[in-house]
């Protein structure tokens, strides 16, 4: 719980959340506060994301990444290539048991590209990718780092005007992604 408190206190949204709850509590509308809290938690498409910018394109859907920004399968953290196939540490496609996939002669099947998802989004939408700031939340019992994929863009992946979010030097948020740490909270 300490980590959650640290995480919340370290972000402006955490502050706003607490301030909002305080005002509601003062006005004696605790029930409404609870309802708002629940609504807020479920309002966006993954835990910790409390704004409207869409996910970065990811081979399997939810924009879960490793520390270096490469795609991981959200359900189990398995590294995947750009085709969405599970791969090993060498980038080779593997089966469900982790065996390297081999052709009938025993030669490994060719590895497919694996692109950091912010870079892939930047390439597809023609801008230079930047990783600026992050924010942290407690999700599923672990600290989750939520990251903005930033660039000098006018529009975000949703198609409408991009927001500043945690991007610096005039850059704006194109899409969002997250990294699930192993730190319990």
């Amino acid at each position, binding site marked *: 719980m300490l980590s959650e408190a640290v995480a919340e206190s370290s972000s402006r949204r955490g502050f706003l959340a607490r301030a909002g709850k305080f005002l509601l509590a003062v006005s004696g509308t605790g029930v409404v506060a609870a309802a708002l809290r629940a609504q807020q*938690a*479920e*309002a*966006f*498409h*993954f*835990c910790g*994301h409390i704004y*409207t*910018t*869409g*996910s*970065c*394109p*990811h*081979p*399997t*859907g*939810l*924009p879960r990444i490793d520390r270096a920004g490469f795609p991981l*399968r*959200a*359900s189990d953290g398995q590294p*995947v290539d*750009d*085709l*969405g*196939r*599970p791969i090993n540490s060498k*980038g*080779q*496609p*593997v*089966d469900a*048991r982790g*065996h*390297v*996939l*081999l*052709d*009938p*002669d*025993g*030669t*490994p*099947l*060719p*590895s*497919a*590209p*694996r*692109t950091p998802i912010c870079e*892939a989004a930047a*390439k597809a939408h023609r801008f230079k990718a930047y990783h600026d700031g992050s924010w942290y939340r407690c999700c599923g019992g672990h600290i989750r780092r939520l990251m903005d994929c930033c660039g000098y863009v006018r529009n975000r*992946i*949703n198609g409408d005007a991009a927001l500043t979010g945690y991007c610096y030097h005039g850059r704006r948020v194109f*899409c*969002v992604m997250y990294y699930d740490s192993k730190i319990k909270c």
Partner: protein
Amino acid sequence: MVGTVRAARHRATARAGFAVALAVGAVAIFGALGLIGELVDPGRWFLIGSAVVAGAAALADLAGLRVRPQLHLQVPEPWRRTMPLPRALFLYGLLLGTGLTTFVPAVAAWALLPLTVAVGLPGAIAIGLSFAAGRAAPVLLVRDEAALAERPHGLRAMRVLAAASLVLALAAGEAQAATKVALRGGDPSAAGTDLVWQQPGVGGVLLRDGGQTQLPGNDPALGGTRIAWHDGDEVTVADSGTLQPVLQLAIPGVEKLAVSDTWFVYRVGLANGKEQLRGFAFADPTRTTTISAALKRGALGRPSLSADTVLYHVAGPAGSALFLFDLATSRRLRLRSSAQSQVLNPDRVGSKLLYVRLSRCDQELRLGPLDGNGAGRVLYKLPPLAGQDAGHEPGHTRQGEHLPCGRPPKPTSRMLWTTALSGTTAYVTVLRPGSGGVMTPSLLAISR
């Protein structure tokens, strides 16, 4: 309707107009259903369900059961009196062609609707035209409408024909989609009507005039009048007609072969663990030409040879590309490349290029122009190798989610692999998962 056609002054024109209108009506309605199928992509289970419904309908027609549901509607009779007959017949044809606006003659007609959605385009157009032909035939061929109405056997025979054509259509559709050439076989090579492939654990197989011949070696290749195989490091090049050896030599580490009348090309495993493509002319087997750089094992594809040109793929973490190497000039040309998808295992006949394209949302066997102008067409398709999640976490909304594939993919562990192309047929190896990660091949033939 028979009477209306016969009453027309210019009977041939009236018949032609009626038949054309039937075709137009049928193509419009079945084409629309096919288009829905293309857009919605109802999936494998819908296709299976449609086939089951079609089978049940065929049985119902064979058994002569009552057609249910039935439409108790007729074409508007006043048109015959208020319009010129050719125009009325044309409009009647349009109505009858839709199959949904008048009396339904057979249960098979109902079964065609979901089947058309499942088949998509262009199969739906073919179904529509077949339906129009089936509807037009009795009107155009029967001389006495009353005789047909009074003889239930005639109507029964028509229903049996409808059922039989439905079953044939199902069988033909399946047969045209892909024919399994070898249950356990892969790495095909074709020349004319001859086909060779490798059967794991057994060796090379030659298919000629419907008969299979076991070859005395592995990884066979055909080209021009030559056939080649290897037994370990011992390579044999033979006359493809007689299978009599014309050249035998040892190539340490030889793995995959390609042959033409003038050239021999092979992939060789090097002592450092890498692989390379090399070749030589039969005119001077001692002079080896290096075709590709030495690459990490698995990155370099199987070569295919057409006259003086070698085709091969290079695939790895940086992307994949199809190359053409001209042995006569030593010039290399990149035919296709992709930084996200995988383009693999090319083969060519003339100006046509056959290759496999694995992308995030499907696997395709594509036949396109060698020069890359135009997308070409998809000869065969499999679902992608990976699925996708919901795009949002449980308990959260869909706002902001971004899914890789427009339609939820139904992933498969089968994978398109090596190819071969002849004048009439495309061949592709389909790999299935096996024990320890080793894939098991089967060989499909698809009509070009």
